């Protein structure tokens, strides 16, 4: 045994991708990559803050403030958190290319290789919408894995990326993928259809370019294959409706509540998610019994949760003696999350988007609008009741902090019953109240749908990242994609209204009332569908999408695709403190911002002079 020769014993070399175990493991690596994007709190911020859904919250740092575009900076090359997408995508794309090349060479099954094709195309679809044209050649040739590392990068144009990097792989994936997933949460024919139809739709908007938004690298808005926007809208419609008509294992849940209920995670409506588990720190890639700042953590919901837990009640029925009404524990359930208060919903969310809070179940199935007492989870607390406003008793699980639908007048904000928050009180009510049309950056409803949930009872602390899967794609979106395509002129067996009414009909179904924490069996489907306008326009689609997917990371993409960002998010309202007259805040959303900045890290590491780097960066950010 020559001492100058090397044999590894604790690692895999790249040649492992030539074996079936290697291909399967490589695919697992691609799924695991989803975690580094979906649920990642700063990426989440990038997709939501600055839209009509969210602004920055009271504890916002510069990342969040800049993202709001309301005068505290802009999300530039250094603080735009779309860098998460940029930095994570290419390693997945490169690995996917290695799997495709090596797996093909070793004659691995097409349906396995198709999973890699899906992820490569999905990565490119997200990148091209966010950044404009992106490189198809990472150093090993176009769509080849990198064998000769390069410090240079050349961006392709948007049509090149779509027609070479997105559509062919997805079309092949629709062909090769199985109807039913290989593994729980694995991609299928229909998942590929959803992304393919969305890609067609997004590209069609890009070709049409109704608001004259610039693209980069500069290129004509013509399709290399000579197709028109209209034809791509039709393709989007056709692929999406094919998905609806051939659902495979996917279906809509009976109620909206069921879609996002933690106990019902990984349900039939969810087509792709970034999975997590509370039972294995190893396979969760993060601590399951405490804080973890790693890059694979599901912590999005922390960002949009206010400091409700600081609310106090009195231990004494006559003299205000403040004690905690809440105990910070992950055991308290889906309504309760760790609080970072980095992002706050704007008032318009409740006065416009979710104006209907009673017929439509989606306001209730989206938000935590009542925080109920949880001090009893603290085993050292023996009180059986505390005293809230008006010294009225509050028992465990009774409301302490409630968001009421509108300001009835007469809410008192003095310190008679000092709950320690901005909330006020009303005569005859024990809970502290916040009119939802006068919320502030510090006190606002939480996001129940993403709330954490722990099956095991052995662990308490709320600092642990959410062990729930982060949902990425839903079967319902096929209806939205087809409807949007129909609005844009595509036609087929379903009209836009028919498609949207499937969603709205389901939204009228109630099974449980989250805010009241009680069963509520109600069927408002007919009323919901009757309220749908006869002619559906793109704005109605966008409103409906916000109701369906509020706070799930879709919003910026939806507004950017339809070029409605400025129109929808150019101004918003928020009260300086709870109960104050809402202030109107203006945002400066410039057309160039539709393309997000290439992250500074990319520019820093590239080899080239200033001019080369400026040329690489999107216009407006140099």
């Amino acid at each position: 045994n020559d001492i100058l020769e090397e044999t590894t014993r604790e690692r895999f070399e790249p040649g492992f991708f030539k074996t079936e175990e290697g291909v399967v493991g490589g695919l697992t690596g691609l799924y695991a990559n989803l975690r580094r994007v979906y649920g990642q709190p700063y990426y989440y911020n990038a997709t939501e803050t600055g839209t009509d859904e969210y602004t920055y919250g009271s504890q916002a740092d510069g990342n969040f403030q800049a993202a709001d575009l309301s005068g505290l900076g802009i999300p530039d090359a250094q603080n735009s958190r779309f860098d998460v997408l940029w930095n994570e995508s290419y390693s997945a794309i490169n690995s996917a290319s290695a799997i495709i090349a090596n797996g093909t060479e070793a004659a691995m099954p097409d349906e396995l290789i198709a999973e890699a094709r899906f992820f490569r195309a999905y990565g490119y679809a997200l990148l091209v919408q966010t950044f404009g044209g992106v490189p198809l050649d990472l150093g090993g040739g176009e769509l080849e894995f990198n064998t000769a590392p390069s410090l240079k990068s050349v961006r392709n144009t948007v049509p090149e990326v779509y027609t070479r990097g997105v559509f062919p792989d997805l079309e092949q994936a629709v062909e090769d993928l199985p109807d039913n997933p290989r593994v729980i949460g694995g991609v299928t024919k229909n998942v590929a259809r959803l992304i393919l139809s969305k890609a067609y739709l997004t590209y069609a908007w890009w070709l049409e370019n109704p608001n004259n938004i610039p693209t980069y690298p500069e290129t004509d808005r013509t399709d290399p294959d000579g197709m028109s926007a209209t034809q791509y809208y039709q393709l989007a419609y056709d692929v999406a409706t094919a998905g609806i008509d051939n659902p495979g294992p996917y279906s809509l849940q009976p109620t909206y509540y069921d879609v996002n209920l933690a106990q019902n995670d990984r349900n039939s409506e969810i087509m792709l998610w970034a999975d997590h588990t509370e039972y294995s720190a190893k396979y969760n890639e993060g601590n399951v019994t405490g804080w973890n700042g790693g890059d694979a953590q599901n912590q999005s919901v922390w960002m949009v949760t206010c400091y409700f837990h600081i609310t106090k009640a009195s231990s004494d029925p006559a003299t205000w003696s403040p004690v905690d009404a809440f105990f910070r524990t992950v055991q308290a359930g889906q309504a309760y999350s760790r609080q970072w208060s980095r992002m706050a919903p704007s008032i318009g969310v409740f006065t416009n988007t979710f104006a209907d809070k009673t017929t439509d179940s989606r306001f209730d199935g989206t938000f935590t609008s009542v925080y109920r007492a949880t001090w009893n989870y603290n085993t050292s607390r023996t009180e059986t009741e505390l005293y809230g406003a008006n010294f009225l008793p509050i028992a465990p699980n009774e409301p302490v902090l409630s968001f009421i639908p509108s300001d009835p007048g007469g809410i008192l904000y003095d310190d008679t019953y000092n709950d320690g928050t901005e909330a006020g009180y009303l005569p005859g009510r024990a809970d502290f109240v916040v009119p939802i049309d006068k919320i502030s950056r510090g006190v606002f409803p939480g996001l129940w749908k993403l709330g954490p949930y722990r099956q095991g009872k052995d662990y308490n602390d709320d600092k642990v990242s959410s062990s729930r899967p982060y949902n990425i794609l839903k079967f319902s979106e096929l209806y939205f994609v087809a409807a949007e395509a129909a609005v844009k002129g595509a036609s087929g067996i379903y009209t836009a209204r028919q498609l949207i009414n499937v969603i709205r009909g389901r939204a009228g179904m109630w099974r449980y009332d989250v805010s009241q924490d009680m069963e509520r069996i109600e069927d408002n489907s007919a009323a919901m569908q009757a309220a749908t306008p006869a002619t559906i326009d793109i704005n109605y689609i966008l409103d409906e999408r916000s109701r369906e997917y509020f706070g799930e990371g879709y919003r910026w993409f939806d507004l950017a695709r339809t070029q409605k960002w400025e129109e929808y998010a150019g101004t918003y309202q928020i009260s300086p403190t709870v109960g104050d007259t809402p202030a109107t805040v203006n945002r400066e959303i410039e057309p160039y911002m539709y393309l997000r900045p290439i992250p500074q890290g990319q520019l820093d590491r590239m080899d080239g002079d200033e001019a080369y780097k400026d040329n690489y960066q999107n216009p407006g950010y140099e």
Partner: protein
Amino acid sequence: CLLVFGSLVAVAQDVKISGKVVEEGSGEPLPGVSILVKGTATGVVTDFDGAYSISVPADATLIYSFIGYLKQEVSVNGRSVVDVSLPLDVQALEEVVVVGYGAVQRKEAVTGSVASIGGDEMREVPSANITDALQGRLPGVDMTQTSSRPGATMQIRIRGTRSLSASNDPLVVLDGIPFAGSISDIDPNSIKSVDILKDASATAIYGSRGANGVILVTTKRGRKGQEAVVSYNAFHGVKTLFSDYPMMDGPEFAAMRAEAIRTVDELGRGATYPNSSDEFDDINTDWQDLLYQTGKVMSHDVSVAKGSETGNYSFGLGYYKDEGVVPTNQYSRFSLRAAVDQNVGEYFRFGLTSNNSYGVTEGNQVGVADALGSSPLSSPYDDQGNLKRASQASQDIYKVWTKESIEDAQDVWLSETKTFGTYNNIYGEVEAPWVKGLKYRLNLGMNYRNSQGGSFTGIGVTSASDPNAPSSASISSAVTTSWVVENILSYDRTFAEKHSLNILALYSNQQEKYNSSRIVANDLPADHFQYYNLGYAEGEIIINPDEQNYSVWGLRSWMGRLMYAYDNRYMLSATLRSDGSSRLSPGNKWHTYPAVSAGWNIANESFMQGVSQINMLKLRVGYGETSNQAIDPYSTLGRLGTRFYNFGDNGDESYSTGYILSELPNTDLGWEYTQTWNFGLDFGLFQGRLNGTVEYYKQHTKDILLSVDLPSTAGVGSFVSNVGETENKGIELSLSGVIIDNLDGFTWEAGFNLYANRNELVSLTSGQEENVGNWWFVGQPINVIYDYKRTGLWQEGDEHMDILEPGGNPGMVKVEYTGEYNSDGTPVRPIGAEDRQVLNFNPDWQGGFNTRLSYKGIDLSIVGAFKKGGTVISTLYGTSSYLNLLSGRHNNVDVDYWTPENTDAKYPRPGGLTAGDNPKYGSTLAYFDASYLKIRTISLGYNFGGNWLDKAGISKLRVYATAQNPLVMFSPYHKESGMDPESNSYGDENQAVTTDIQERLPVIGTNAPATRTYLLGINLTF
């Protein structure tokens, strides 16, 4: 009768003689001189006064020998009193220098650059390891503290930094064998000398492993002809805080928080952090005072050595313990060493050296971050006076710890590492009977080091909020085994008294194997298990593949060296070495490099004989190449990274291991090599009372092995390649002198060294001017800071604030704008990423000094070190430790901040514009002038003399008191913070955010605080 006659004869032949042995010239009595009757084994040794008596035949010849003196043969000739004066052996007294592969050279003959220090001199700084002891002592040898924990060793850089991603650590050679352990495994008490090879002509003999310099550590051995000597050395001491971290007290923090709230209200944006229900403005808790303890330091060392004409031995046993000021932080070490040399017959010689140590490091679970962040407005005690579980600073919750509660929790909260290392060298030597001076030597080195780690956190122990948080434990193990076989053929001969020749040929093979593993288990059912039985874990047991390591590397070398001297005037040394490394690509495995150096002893020239002030004057010049293969094994092969995932949540069947391409194969990796020029001048003046050396060097390192961070678009994070070039040049000066030489018993000696190194990155990847991600810039040193340049704070009414800092506020940090201006004088753009600049990190020059005053038995010595210029990064004041948020969120470093009423402050307005959680440009507040002058130790000692010692059989007794780290002067950082200006962490350690600063840059972080130690010690020799 016969019997009587016989005894008469005997009486007649033996005479009792006595006498005294003194040093020739001075007449000082010489104790311990060995006196042997020639041709017999009979002998005695002189006593403390140099006196002796012995019965010998009247015609006997006596041999007087003593180390350092020339041997004398004296015939008794019937005398009864024989007084002898021994002349000094000038040759032996001259310093000898170890130059590698067993060769010892008189310093006068050395042509390379070698810095040496004797063991006793080194031990003037009592310390746990040689890095502590040598800091600031040798020119060109830079020791930088990178951890303030007990037992930590320092980063060593010899003549600067060469490599970008390969190691810049020097090779340590312990008793001739490349050392595979940690420097902390070597007990400083065992050391006879340390010789540091600095230039290529000196290090070339160690080839690729010597590229960053070589530290030759030689341990004590018995001397030829030495009587048994027993030595005992010990010290005990207390360790106190040098300074605490300069955090705000209660009133200061309350005022700052109020100011932050006022600012936020005024500016109408940002977050406020009012008192939590745990905080009250009238409370003033000093969390650090509750935490720190007074530590203890102790060292005991016993050794015995003896030698005869044909062999010698030495054994030693040591114990060292260092307890930190952070409770449970401690390091202890047992060491055992043995050295034996034995001649067999006339031509054979065998020997063995064994250095063994067992060290335990404890207490790394306890840090200071909680104590620094906790609100001084929160009490550690509840209403009943019991210690609280946690304290809440606005929104941040901290676990409450005091030194007592940490001690109490020792059984349920612990972290320890136990390391056993054994470093052994066996040799056999044979002289060729037929060729004088020809020798063959076989060295066999065998090293083994095993490090076992264990940690345990009991149920709820560290959780601020959850007393039932599950327990966790981990165990780790790392084993290093290495062997080396060296075949050395040497020829050493002087011809015609003037031509001295030393030729050495070497063939060696070495291999090192490293294997480590780590297991983490959760939810141990009972606390008494600690980490000793993870099998009972009820929670997950994790064996993360990224924490299991295995590597083997091998190196095969051929080397030849020729040293020639003519008449002690002209010296030449030439080396050629060829190394083959397993780590590099096939086809690129071998590299051959030469080194040549020459010296001229000018003082020995006849024309200098009249210049009596100059005793020594030598000019040296050397050129050589060294190379570096210090990339990780398997770097050429590429790698898949590991990603774990769960498909669904059905337990084991959901779990899956994934892979992602993380490193690319590289078939072209070859050697990185350095070309070095060295020029030196050694001088000795005034009968040796002033000695010194001046050296100048220049190194070019080429084909640097560089891990290049790739842009994200490459799809892999980085790859290793041979790119780039760096340059180091520098000047080194050392002086030592006897200022007052025994004037009425008073002597004053002083030593001084000064050195400066200029480092430059000459090129990166072809044509690339900068690598911003790694903070590498062509034309700049390797170590720089890349950030904005702070110029002060924005003041009300300052020009162009609206353009340069949209959304900014007066009192925020002002940084330099480097952009263009419009014709109307307004800046064209806001301040942004392109305004970041390269800022200086390296010191201008540094050095050290030592001085020793003695009067009769009393001596006072001082050792100091200094540094001028450069930057010390204090993460406390910057952004990465989250302790200068100036928002009131949790406790803050005590700084002078801007308010509308205090506008000439250094630090920004609380509650002002932030980037992330910190003040915008807050990172620029971390940079301070790194200059300092430190007194490292002051020692006062007394050497006992007198007859009672003699009667007690004691040949030496010394007691001393030492203060370590007593004083820091001329340090801007010390002046502002009161802290020790030395770094205590690497750039990615001991901070809240560990990704902001390059890992390679040492920083001041929230590690164990700096300490000051007071010791009492004793040296005793029988």
